[in-house]
Protein backbone atom coordinates (compact mmCIF):
# COMPACT_ATOMS: atom_id res chain seq x y z
CA UNK A 1 0.00 0.00 0.00
CA UNK A 2 2.95 2.38 -0.21
CA UNK A 3 5.45 2.92 -2.95
CA UNK A 4 8.84 4.50 -3.36
CA UNK A 5 9.21 7.49 -5.65
CA UNK A 6 12.43 8.06 -7.53
CA UNK A 7 12.81 11.31 -9.40
CA UNK A 8 15.69 11.93 -11.76
CA UNK A 9 16.59 14.97 -13.83
CA UNK A 10 13.18 16.61 -13.56
CA UNK A 11 12.51 20.02 -15.11
CA UNK A 12 9.10 21.71 -15.04
CA UNK A 13 7.98 24.59 -17.20
CA UNK A 14 5.12 27.08 -17.27
CA UNK A 15 4.97 27.98 -20.95
CA UNK A 16 8.49 29.11 -21.76
CA UNK A 17 9.48 29.70 -18.15
CA UNK A 18 11.59 27.10 -16.40
CA UNK A 19 10.07 26.81 -12.93
CA UNK A 20 12.18 24.03 -11.41
CA UNK A 21 15.47 22.73 -12.68
CA UNK A 22 17.10 19.33 -12.62
CA UNK A 23 15.63 17.75 -9.51
CA UNK A 24 16.59 14.24 -8.45
CA UNK A 25 15.56 12.62 -5.19
CA UNK A 26 14.25 9.44 -3.64
CA UNK A 27 11.13 9.50 -1.50
CA UNK A 28 10.92 6.53 0.85
CA UNK A 29 7.73 4.53 1.34
CA UNK A 30 5.87 4.59 4.68
CA UNK A 31 7.54 7.78 5.73
CA UNK A 32 6.86 11.49 5.69
CA UNK A 33 9.01 13.65 3.47
CA UNK A 34 8.72 17.41 3.95
CA UNK A 35 9.55 20.06 1.36
CA UNK A 36 10.65 23.38 2.80
CA UNK A 37 11.96 26.55 1.23
CA UNK A 38 11.13 30.21 0.62
CA UNK A 39 8.09 31.30 -1.41
CA UNK A 40 8.39 30.74 -5.14
CA UNK A 41 11.14 28.13 -4.83
CA UNK A 42 9.10 25.55 -6.73
CA UNK A 43 8.24 23.14 -3.94
CA UNK A 44 4.53 23.13 -4.78
CA UNK A 45 5.29 22.90 -8.50
CA UNK A 46 7.54 19.91 -7.84
CA UNK A 47 4.85 18.29 -5.70
CA UNK A 48 2.35 18.68 -8.53
CA UNK A 49 4.67 16.91 -10.95
CA UNK A 50 4.48 13.82 -8.73
CA UNK A 51 0.86 13.10 -9.69
CA UNK A 52 0.80 14.84 -13.06
CA UNK A 53 -1.34 17.71 -11.77
CA UNK A 54 1.25 20.15 -13.07
CA UNK A 55 0.16 19.62 -16.66
CA UNK A 56 -3.45 20.54 -15.86
CA UNK A 57 -2.37 24.19 -16.09
CA UNK A 58 -2.47 25.36 -19.73
CA UNK A 59 1.02 25.50 -21.22
CA UNK A 60 2.69 23.65 -18.35
CA UNK A 61 4.96 20.69 -19.13
CA UNK A 62 7.48 18.40 -17.50
CA UNK A 63 10.75 16.81 -18.58
CA UNK A 64 12.52 14.04 -16.74
CA UNK A 65 11.64 10.85 -15.03
CA UNK A 66 9.45 9.99 -12.04
CA UNK A 67 9.45 6.32 -11.11
CA UNK A 68 6.79 4.94 -8.80
CA UNK A 69 8.43 1.63 -7.86
CA UNK A 70 8.83 0.19 -11.36
CA UNK A 71 6.38 2.42 -13.25
CA UNK A 72 7.41 5.59 -15.05
CA UNK A 73 4.69 8.17 -14.36
CA UNK A 74 5.60 10.03 -17.54
CA UNK A 75 5.83 6.93 -19.72
CA UNK A 76 4.30 7.31 -23.18
CA UNK A 77 1.34 4.99 -22.59
CA UNK A 78 0.57 6.11 -19.04
CA UNK A 79 -2.88 7.58 -18.37
CA UNK A 80 -2.59 10.66 -16.13
CA UNK A 81 -6.02 9.85 -14.68
CA UNK A 82 -4.72 6.48 -13.46
CA UNK A 83 -1.64 8.19 -11.99
CA UNK A 84 -3.83 10.52 -9.96
CA UNK A 85 -5.82 7.59 -8.66
CA UNK A 86 -2.57 6.09 -7.34
CA UNK A 87 -1.06 9.33 -6.08
CA UNK A 88 -3.64 11.33 -4.13
CA UNK A 89 -3.47 14.98 -3.23
CA UNK A 90 -4.66 17.35 -0.51
CA UNK A 91 -4.63 21.06 -1.30
CA UNK A 92 -3.74 24.22 0.55
CA UNK A 93 -7.30 25.41 0.91
CA UNK A 94 -9.97 22.91 1.93
CA UNK A 95 -12.08 22.31 -1.18
CA UNK A 96 -15.01 19.99 -0.46
CA UNK A 97 -17.50 19.72 -3.32
CA UNK A 98 -20.18 22.31 -2.45
CA UNK A 99 -23.12 20.40 -3.93
CA UNK A 100 -22.35 17.22 -2.04
CA UNK A 101 -23.00 16.03 1.49
CA UNK A 102 -20.23 14.86 3.81
CA UNK A 103 -20.93 11.26 2.80
CA UNK A 104 -21.01 12.07 -0.91
CA UNK A 105 -17.76 14.01 -0.66
CA UNK A 106 -15.92 11.03 0.78
CA UNK A 107 -17.56 8.66 -1.68
CA UNK A 108 -16.99 11.02 -4.62
CA UNK A 109 -13.71 9.54 -5.80
CA UNK A 110 -15.15 6.03 -5.89
CA UNK A 111 -18.55 6.99 -7.26
CA UNK A 112 -17.14 9.16 -10.01
CA UNK A 113 -14.94 6.24 -10.98
CA UNK A 114 -17.95 4.02 -11.31
CA UNK A 115 -17.97 2.10 -8.03
CA UNK A 116 -21.52 1.15 -7.03
CA UNK A 117 -22.99 -0.77 -4.14
CA UNK A 118 -24.20 0.98 -1.03
CA UNK A 119 -22.75 -1.35 1.57
CA UNK A 120 -19.27 -1.14 0.06
CA UNK A 121 -19.46 2.64 -0.14
CA UNK A 122 -20.79 2.80 3.44
CA UNK A 123 -17.79 0.80 4.63
CA UNK A 124 -15.26 2.88 2.72
CA UNK A 125 -16.80 6.15 3.90
CA UNK A 126 -16.75 5.10 7.54
CA UNK A 127 -13.22 3.72 7.34
CA UNK A 128 -11.87 6.79 5.55
CA UNK A 129 -13.53 9.19 7.98
CA UNK A 130 -12.16 7.15 10.92
CA UNK A 131 -8.68 7.24 9.38
CA UNK A 132 -9.04 10.99 8.95
CA UNK A 133 -10.03 11.40 12.65
CA UNK A 134 -13.33 12.92 11.61
CA UNK A 135 -15.81 10.08 12.11
CA UNK A 136 -16.84 10.94 15.66
CA UNK A 137 -17.53 14.55 14.75
CA UNK A 138 -19.68 13.88 11.70
CA UNK A 139 -21.19 10.40 12.06
CA UNK A 140 -24.60 11.83 12.99
CA UNK A 141 -24.73 14.29 10.10
CA UNK A 142 -23.31 12.48 7.10
CA UNK A 143 -26.15 13.83 4.97
CA UNK A 144 -25.33 17.46 5.79
CA UNK A 145 -23.34 19.58 3.33
CA UNK A 146 -19.57 19.25 3.52
CA UNK A 147 -19.20 23.00 3.22
CA UNK A 148 -20.98 23.43 6.56
CA UNK A 149 -18.02 22.08 8.54
CA UNK A 150 -15.30 24.22 10.11
CA UNK A 151 -12.08 24.85 8.17
CA UNK A 152 -10.11 22.18 10.00
CA UNK A 153 -12.92 19.66 9.66
CA UNK A 154 -13.22 20.46 5.96
CA UNK A 155 -9.52 19.79 5.50
CA UNK A 156 -9.83 16.45 7.29
CA UNK A 157 -12.86 15.74 5.07
CA UNK A 158 -10.65 16.40 2.05
CA UNK A 159 -8.04 14.01 3.46
CA UNK A 160 -10.75 11.37 3.96
CA UNK A 161 -11.87 11.96 0.37
CA UNK A 162 -8.29 11.56 -0.88
CA UNK A 163 -7.60 8.33 1.04
CA UNK A 164 -10.98 6.78 0.17
CA UNK A 165 -9.70 5.90 -3.32
CA UNK A 166 -6.84 3.93 -1.68
CA UNK A 167 -3.85 5.74 -3.17
CA UNK A 168 -0.26 4.54 -2.69
CA UNK A 169 1.07 8.02 -2.10
CA UNK A 170 -0.51 11.08 -0.50
CA UNK A 171 0.74 14.52 -1.50
CA UNK A 172 -0.13 17.43 0.78
CA UNK A 173 0.35 20.98 -0.44
CA UNK A 174 0.62 23.19 2.66
CA UNK A 175 -2.44 21.48 4.16
CA UNK A 176 -2.37 23.53 7.37
CA UNK A 177 -1.60 27.01 6.10
CA UNK A 178 -5.26 28.07 6.18
CA UNK A 179 -5.98 26.44 9.55
CA UNK A 180 -5.90 27.41 13.23
CA UNK A 181 -3.37 25.80 15.63
CA UNK A 182 -5.83 23.24 17.01
CA UNK A 183 -6.83 22.03 13.57
CA UNK A 184 -3.18 22.04 12.54
CA UNK A 185 -2.39 19.76 15.46
CA UNK A 186 -5.22 17.44 14.43
CA UNK A 187 -3.85 17.25 10.89
CA UNK A 188 -0.29 16.64 12.12
CA UNK A 189 -1.47 13.80 14.34
CA UNK A 190 -3.28 12.42 11.35
CA UNK A 191 -0.15 12.60 9.18
CA UNK A 192 1.81 10.67 11.81
CA UNK A 193 -0.90 8.01 11.80
CA UNK A 194 -1.30 7.81 8.02
CA UNK A 195 2.39 7.28 7.35
CA UNK A 196 1.97 3.68 8.44
CA UNK A 197 -0.14 3.13 5.34
CA UNK A 198 0.99 5.67 2.78
CA UNK A 199 4.02 7.39 1.40
CA UNK A 200 3.43 10.98 2.43
CA UNK A 201 4.94 14.10 0.93
CA UNK A 202 4.08 17.38 2.63
CA UNK A 203 4.92 20.88 1.47
CA UNK A 204 5.12 23.37 4.30
CA UNK A 205 6.40 26.88 4.85
CA UNK A 206 6.46 26.17 8.54
CA UNK A 207 9.84 24.75 9.55
CA UNK A 208 8.63 23.69 12.98
CA UNK A 209 5.96 21.65 11.28
CA UNK A 210 8.54 19.98 9.04
CA UNK A 211 10.61 19.19 12.11
CA UNK A 212 7.60 17.80 13.96
CA UNK A 213 6.03 15.57 11.35
CA UNK A 214 8.65 14.51 8.84
CA UNK A 215 11.27 11.77 8.67
CA UNK A 216 13.14 13.34 5.81
CA UNK A 217 13.31 16.95 4.71
CA UNK A 218 14.15 18.46 1.34
CA UNK A 219 15.23 22.08 1.11
CA UNK A 220 14.47 24.01 -2.09
CA UNK A 221 15.78 27.45 -3.00
CA UNK A 222 15.96 29.96 -5.83
CA UNK A 223 18.97 32.03 -6.79
CA UNK A 224 16.74 35.08 -7.31
CA UNK A 225 13.33 36.10 -8.60
CA UNK A 226 12.73 34.77 -12.09
CA UNK A 227 15.33 32.05 -11.66
CA UNK A 228 14.23 28.41 -11.54
CA UNK A 229 13.88 26.62 -8.20
CA UNK A 230 16.40 23.95 -7.28
CA UNK A 231 16.75 21.21 -4.73
CA UNK A 232 19.56 22.23 -2.40
CA UNK A 233 19.65 19.11 -0.26
CA UNK A 234 17.58 16.28 1.11
CA UNK A 235 18.45 14.31 4.23
CA UNK A 236 17.03 12.96 7.44
CA UNK A 237 15.05 15.69 9.14
CA UNK A 238 17.27 15.62 12.24
CA UNK A 239 20.36 16.07 10.07
CA UNK A 240 18.86 18.94 8.09
CA UNK A 241 17.91 20.78 11.23
CA UNK A 242 21.13 20.15 13.16
CA UNK A 243 24.04 19.84 10.76
CA UNK A 244 23.02 20.56 7.17
CA UNK A 245 25.60 20.14 4.42
CA UNK A 246 24.86 23.39 2.66
CA UNK A 247 25.30 26.93 3.94
CA UNK A 248 21.99 28.03 2.29
CA UNK A 249 20.06 25.39 4.23
CA UNK A 250 21.59 26.50 7.49
CA UNK A 251 20.85 30.15 6.70
CA UNK A 252 17.24 29.28 5.96
CA UNK A 253 16.52 27.09 8.96
CA UNK A 254 18.20 29.52 11.33
CA UNK A 255 15.98 32.27 9.95
CA UNK A 256 18.66 34.31 8.21
CA UNK A 257 16.38 34.59 5.18
CA UNK A 258 13.03 33.31 3.92
Amino acid at each position, binding site marked *: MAKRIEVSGLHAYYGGTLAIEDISMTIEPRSVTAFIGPSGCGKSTFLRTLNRMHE*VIPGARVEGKVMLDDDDLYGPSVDPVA*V*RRTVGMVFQRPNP*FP*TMSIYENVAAGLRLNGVRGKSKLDDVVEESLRDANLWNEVKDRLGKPGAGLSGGQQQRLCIARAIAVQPQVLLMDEPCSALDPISTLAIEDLVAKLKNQFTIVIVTHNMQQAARVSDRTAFFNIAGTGKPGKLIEIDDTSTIFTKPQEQATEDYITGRFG
Partner: protein
Amino acid sequence: MSSSLGTVSPVRRIKDRAAAAFVWIAFALAVIPLVSVLWTVVAHGIHRLDPTFFNFSMNGIAGRDAGGGAYHAIIGTLEQVAITTVIAVPIAVLTAIYLVEYGGNSRFARVVRFFVDVMTGIPSIVAGLFVLALWLLTFGFQYSGFAGSLALTILMIPTVVRAAEEMLKLVPNDLREASYALGVPRWRTICFVILPTAFTGILTGVMLAVARVMGETAPLLLTIFFTKAINTDPFSGPQGSLPTFIWDQASDPNQNAVNRAWTGALVLIALIMLLNLAARLVARRFRPAGR
Protein backbone atom coordinates in the same frame (compact mmCIF):
# COMPACT_ATOMS: atom_id res chain seq x y z
CA MET B 1 -20.00 65.32 21.19
CA SER B 2 -16.58 66.35 19.96
CA SER B 3 -13.92 63.75 20.54
CA SER B 4 -10.29 63.37 19.62
CA LEU B 5 -11.40 61.37 16.61
CA GLY B 6 -13.17 64.44 15.21
CA THR B 7 -16.66 64.69 13.83
CA VAL B 8 -18.01 64.12 10.34
CA SER B 9 -17.39 67.31 8.44
CA PRO B 10 -20.49 69.13 7.10
CA VAL B 11 -19.27 68.76 3.52
CA ARG B 12 -19.06 64.99 3.85
CA ARG B 13 -22.46 64.90 5.50
CA ILE B 14 -23.98 66.84 2.61
CA LYS B 15 -22.27 64.60 0.03
CA ASP B 16 -23.55 61.53 1.86
CA ARG B 17 -27.11 62.83 1.90
CA ALA B 18 -26.93 63.87 -1.75
CA ALA B 19 -25.64 60.48 -2.82
CA ALA B 20 -28.31 58.68 -0.80
CA ALA B 21 -31.03 60.90 -2.29
CA PHE B 22 -29.70 60.27 -5.77
CA VAL B 23 -29.78 56.51 -5.25
CA TRP B 24 -33.36 56.64 -4.00
CA ILE B 25 -34.50 58.80 -6.91
CA ALA B 26 -32.85 56.45 -9.39
CA PHE B 27 -34.54 53.50 -7.69
CA ALA B 28 -37.94 55.21 -7.87
CA LEU B 29 -37.42 56.07 -11.54
CA ALA B 30 -36.63 52.45 -12.27
CA VAL B 31 -39.63 51.14 -10.34
CA ILE B 32 -42.24 53.56 -11.73
CA PRO B 33 -42.42 52.04 -15.21
CA LEU B 34 -42.42 48.51 -13.79
CA VAL B 35 -45.31 49.19 -11.42
CA SER B 36 -47.11 51.23 -14.05
CA VAL B 37 -46.90 48.45 -16.65
CA LEU B 38 -48.04 45.82 -14.18
CA TRP B 39 -50.87 47.99 -12.93
CA THR B 40 -52.12 48.89 -16.41
CA VAL B 41 -52.01 45.29 -17.60
CA VAL B 42 -53.80 43.98 -14.51
CA ALA B 43 -56.41 46.76 -14.51
CA HIS B 44 -57.29 46.29 -18.17
CA GLY B 45 -56.73 42.56 -18.35
CA ILE B 46 -58.95 41.67 -15.40
CA HIS B 47 -62.18 42.21 -17.43
CA ARG B 48 -61.73 39.15 -19.56
CA LEU B 49 -59.92 36.95 -17.05
CA ASP B 50 -62.74 34.39 -17.15
CA PRO B 51 -63.02 30.65 -17.88
CA THR B 52 -64.10 31.39 -21.47
CA PHE B 53 -60.74 33.02 -22.13
CA PHE B 54 -58.89 29.84 -21.17
CA ASN B 55 -61.28 27.37 -22.76
CA PHE B 56 -62.11 28.79 -26.17
CA SER B 57 -60.23 29.85 -29.25
CA MET B 58 -61.09 32.75 -31.54
CA ASN B 59 -62.56 30.44 -34.16
CA GLY B 60 -65.56 32.18 -35.78
CA ILE B 61 -65.31 35.21 -33.51
CA ALA B 62 -64.94 38.66 -35.03
CA GLY B 63 -63.30 41.61 -33.34
CA ARG B 64 -66.58 43.22 -32.24
CA ASP B 65 -67.94 40.01 -30.68
CA ALA B 66 -67.71 39.46 -26.97
CA GLY B 67 -66.45 36.08 -25.70
CA GLY B 68 -63.71 34.19 -27.46
CA GLY B 69 -60.45 33.24 -25.85
CA ALA B 70 -56.78 32.51 -26.16
CA TYR B 71 -56.78 28.73 -25.73
CA HIS B 72 -55.17 28.25 -29.15
CA ALA B 73 -52.60 30.97 -28.40
CA ILE B 74 -51.65 29.59 -24.99
CA ILE B 75 -51.24 26.08 -26.43
CA GLY B 76 -49.15 27.49 -29.27
CA THR B 77 -46.87 29.57 -27.06
CA LEU B 78 -46.27 26.72 -24.60
CA GLU B 79 -45.46 24.27 -27.40
CA GLN B 80 -43.24 26.64 -29.32
CA VAL B 81 -41.27 27.76 -26.27
CA ALA B 82 -40.93 24.17 -25.03
CA ILE B 83 -39.52 23.04 -28.39
CA THR B 84 -37.24 26.09 -28.48
CA THR B 85 -35.91 25.29 -25.01
CA VAL B 86 -35.35 21.64 -25.84
CA ILE B 87 -33.30 22.56 -28.91
CA ALA B 88 -31.51 25.66 -27.67
CA VAL B 89 -30.49 24.76 -24.11
CA PRO B 90 -28.39 21.66 -24.91
CA ILE B 91 -26.63 23.42 -27.78
CA ALA B 92 -26.00 26.52 -25.68
CA VAL B 93 -24.83 24.68 -22.56
CA LEU B 94 -22.52 22.42 -24.55
CA THR B 95 -21.11 25.49 -26.30
CA ALA B 96 -20.49 27.14 -22.94
CA ILE B 97 -18.82 23.98 -21.64
CA TYR B 98 -16.56 23.97 -24.68
CA LEU B 99 -15.68 27.64 -24.22
CA VAL B 100 -14.86 27.37 -20.52
CA GLU B 101 -13.54 23.84 -20.08
CA TYR B 102 -11.84 23.08 -23.37
CA GLY B 103 -11.49 26.13 -25.62
CA GLY B 104 -9.77 28.48 -23.21
CA ASN B 105 -8.13 31.17 -25.26
CA SER B 106 -7.65 29.17 -28.44
CA ARG B 107 -8.36 30.73 -31.81
CA PHE B 108 -11.50 28.69 -32.40
CA ALA B 109 -12.90 29.57 -28.96
CA ARG B 110 -12.31 33.26 -29.63
CA VAL B 111 -14.13 32.96 -32.96
CA VAL B 112 -17.06 31.17 -31.31
CA ARG B 113 -17.21 33.80 -28.58
CA PHE B 114 -17.20 36.57 -31.18
CA PHE B 115 -20.07 35.03 -33.14
CA VAL B 116 -22.09 34.42 -29.99
CA ASP B 117 -21.75 38.14 -29.32
CA VAL B 118 -22.82 38.91 -32.86
CA MET B 119 -25.83 36.59 -32.49
CA THR B 120 -26.86 38.37 -29.29
CA GLY B 121 -27.29 41.51 -31.35
CA ILE B 122 -29.43 39.99 -34.11
CA PRO B 123 -32.78 41.84 -34.32
CA SER B 124 -35.53 39.31 -33.71
CA ILE B 125 -37.26 40.03 -37.01
CA VAL B 126 -34.05 39.12 -38.84
CA ALA B 127 -34.09 35.72 -37.13
CA GLY B 128 -37.67 35.34 -38.37
CA LEU B 129 -36.74 36.39 -41.89
CA PHE B 130 -33.84 33.94 -41.87
CA VAL B 131 -36.10 31.01 -41.00
CA LEU B 132 -38.68 32.22 -43.51
CA ALA B 133 -36.06 32.38 -46.25
CA LEU B 134 -34.31 29.11 -45.40
CA TRP B 135 -36.88 26.77 -43.86
CA LEU B 136 -40.07 27.89 -45.59
CA LEU B 137 -39.00 29.29 -48.94
CA THR B 138 -35.80 27.34 -49.71
CA PHE B 139 -36.64 24.00 -48.13
CA GLY B 140 -40.33 24.38 -48.85
CA PHE B 141 -41.76 23.52 -45.43
CA GLN B 142 -45.11 25.06 -44.52
CA TYR B 143 -45.87 27.51 -41.76
CA SER B 144 -45.78 25.74 -38.40
CA GLY B 145 -45.14 26.20 -34.72
CA PHE B 146 -41.87 24.37 -35.25
CA ALA B 147 -40.69 26.98 -37.75
CA GLY B 148 -41.42 29.58 -35.08
CA SER B 149 -39.37 27.53 -32.61
CA LEU B 150 -36.44 27.56 -35.02
CA ALA B 151 -36.52 31.36 -35.17
CA LEU B 152 -36.77 31.59 -31.38
CA THR B 153 -33.90 29.11 -31.03
CA ILE B 154 -31.63 31.51 -32.89
CA LEU B 155 -32.54 34.19 -30.36
CA MET B 156 -32.26 31.95 -27.32
CA ILE B 157 -28.91 30.26 -27.93
CA PRO B 158 -26.60 33.28 -27.50
CA THR B 159 -28.32 34.45 -24.31
CA VAL B 160 -28.01 31.04 -22.71
CA VAL B 161 -24.40 30.60 -23.90
CA ARG B 162 -23.36 33.87 -22.27
CA ALA B 163 -25.19 33.12 -19.02
CA ALA B 164 -23.88 29.54 -18.82
CA GLU B 165 -20.35 30.65 -19.68
CA GLU B 166 -20.34 33.20 -16.87
CA MET B 167 -21.69 30.63 -14.42
CA LEU B 168 -19.14 27.97 -15.38
CA LYS B 169 -16.36 30.51 -15.01
CA LEU B 170 -17.54 31.14 -11.45
CA VAL B 171 -16.94 27.51 -10.47
CA PRO B 172 -13.68 27.67 -8.49
CA ASN B 173 -10.70 26.01 -10.13
CA ASP B 174 -10.05 24.33 -6.76
CA LEU B 175 -13.00 22.04 -7.42
CA ARG B 176 -11.71 20.95 -10.81
CA GLU B 177 -8.30 20.21 -9.31
CA ALA B 178 -9.84 18.40 -6.36
CA SER B 179 -11.71 16.17 -8.76
CA TYR B 180 -8.74 15.54 -11.06
CA ALA B 181 -6.60 14.71 -8.03
CA LEU B 182 -9.05 11.92 -7.16
CA GLY B 183 -8.35 10.36 -10.53
CA VAL B 184 -11.69 11.43 -11.99
CA PRO B 185 -11.64 11.92 -15.77
CA ARG B 186 -12.40 15.33 -17.15
CA TRP B 187 -15.83 14.55 -18.61
CA ARG B 188 -17.00 13.06 -15.32
CA THR B 189 -15.65 16.08 -13.50
CA ILE B 190 -17.71 18.30 -15.78
CA CYS B 191 -20.88 16.20 -15.47
CA PHE B 192 -20.81 15.47 -11.75
CA VAL B 193 -18.87 18.33 -10.16
CA ILE B 194 -18.88 21.41 -12.37
CA LEU B 195 -22.38 21.33 -13.86
CA PRO B 196 -24.14 20.66 -10.53
CA THR B 197 -22.19 23.52 -8.94
CA ALA B 198 -23.20 25.91 -11.72
CA PHE B 199 -26.70 24.47 -12.11
CA THR B 200 -28.64 27.18 -10.26
CA GLY B 201 -27.01 29.97 -12.21
CA ILE B 202 -27.46 28.26 -15.55
CA LEU B 203 -31.12 27.66 -14.75
CA THR B 204 -31.60 31.36 -13.98
CA GLY B 205 -29.99 32.22 -17.31
CA VAL B 206 -32.28 29.77 -19.11
CA MET B 207 -35.36 31.29 -17.44
CA LEU B 208 -34.37 34.80 -18.47
CA ALA B 209 -33.92 33.59 -22.03
CA VAL B 210 -37.28 31.79 -21.95
CA ALA B 211 -38.93 34.97 -20.70
CA ARG B 212 -37.31 36.89 -23.51
CA VAL B 213 -38.35 34.59 -26.36
CA MET B 214 -41.86 34.08 -24.96
CA GLY B 215 -42.68 37.68 -25.71
CA GLU B 216 -41.19 37.75 -29.21
CA THR B 217 -43.76 38.65 -31.85
CA ALA B 218 -42.02 39.60 -35.06
CA PRO B 219 -40.21 36.32 -35.81
CA LEU B 220 -43.42 34.37 -35.11
CA LEU B 221 -45.52 36.41 -37.53
CA LEU B 222 -43.20 35.32 -40.31
CA THR B 223 -42.96 31.67 -39.33
CA ILE B 224 -46.09 30.37 -37.56
CA PHE B 225 -48.29 32.67 -39.62
CA PHE B 226 -51.67 33.20 -38.07
CA THR B 227 -54.77 31.26 -37.12
CA LYS B 228 -57.83 31.75 -34.97
CA ALA B 229 -58.36 28.03 -34.56
CA ILE B 230 -56.82 25.50 -32.24
CA ASN B 231 -53.89 23.63 -33.72
CA THR B 232 -52.22 21.36 -31.20
CA ASP B 233 -49.71 19.97 -33.69
CA PRO B 234 -46.67 22.25 -33.74
CA PHE B 235 -45.25 20.48 -36.78
CA SER B 236 -47.94 21.23 -39.31
CA GLY B 237 -50.00 24.23 -40.22
CA PRO B 238 -50.24 27.74 -38.85
CA GLN B 239 -50.40 27.97 -35.08
CA GLY B 240 -51.45 30.64 -32.63
CA SER B 241 -49.29 32.22 -29.99
CA LEU B 242 -49.89 34.74 -27.22
CA PRO B 243 -47.73 37.53 -28.69
CA THR B 244 -49.36 37.27 -32.11
CA PHE B 245 -52.78 36.99 -30.41
CA ILE B 246 -52.11 40.22 -28.51
CA TRP B 247 -50.79 41.92 -31.63
CA ASP B 248 -53.85 40.90 -33.64
CA GLN B 249 -56.43 41.82 -31.03
CA ALA B 250 -54.78 45.12 -30.10
CA SER B 251 -54.83 46.27 -33.71
CA ASP B 252 -58.62 45.79 -33.85
CA PRO B 253 -60.48 48.98 -32.86
CA ASN B 254 -63.36 47.18 -31.13
CA GLN B 255 -63.34 47.36 -27.34
CA ASN B 256 -64.04 43.64 -27.02
CA ALA B 257 -60.89 42.84 -29.01
CA VAL B 258 -58.80 45.35 -27.07
CA ASN B 259 -59.97 43.77 -23.82
CA ARG B 260 -58.88 40.36 -25.10
CA ALA B 261 -55.46 41.80 -25.98
CA TRP B 262 -54.99 43.11 -22.43
CA THR B 263 -55.98 39.79 -20.92
CA GLY B 264 -53.59 38.05 -23.32
CA ALA B 265 -50.79 40.30 -22.05
CA LEU B 266 -51.74 39.54 -18.46
CA VAL B 267 -51.72 35.80 -19.12
CA LEU B 268 -48.33 36.05 -20.85
CA ILE B 269 -46.80 37.86 -17.88
CA ALA B 270 -48.39 35.38 -15.48
CA LEU B 271 -47.04 32.43 -17.47
CA ILE B 272 -43.50 33.82 -17.35
CA MET B 273 -43.82 34.46 -13.62
CA LEU B 274 -45.11 30.96 -13.00
CA LEU B 275 -42.24 29.44 -14.95
CA ASN B 276 -39.76 31.55 -13.00
CA LEU B 277 -41.33 30.45 -9.75
CA ALA B 278 -41.14 26.80 -10.78
CA ALA B 279 -37.50 27.22 -11.78
CA ARG B 280 -36.69 28.76 -8.41
CA LEU B 281 -38.27 25.86 -6.59
CA VAL B 282 -36.19 23.45 -8.67
CA ALA B 283 -33.06 25.54 -8.13
CA ARG B 284 -33.56 25.52 -4.38
CA ARG B 285 -33.20 21.75 -4.31
CA PHE B 286 -29.86 21.94 -6.10
CA ARG B 287 -28.43 25.01 -4.43
CA PRO B 288 -24.84 24.57 -3.24
CA ALA B 289 -24.91 24.48 0.52
CA GLY B 290 -23.58 27.56 2.25
CA ARG B 291 -21.39 27.60 5.29
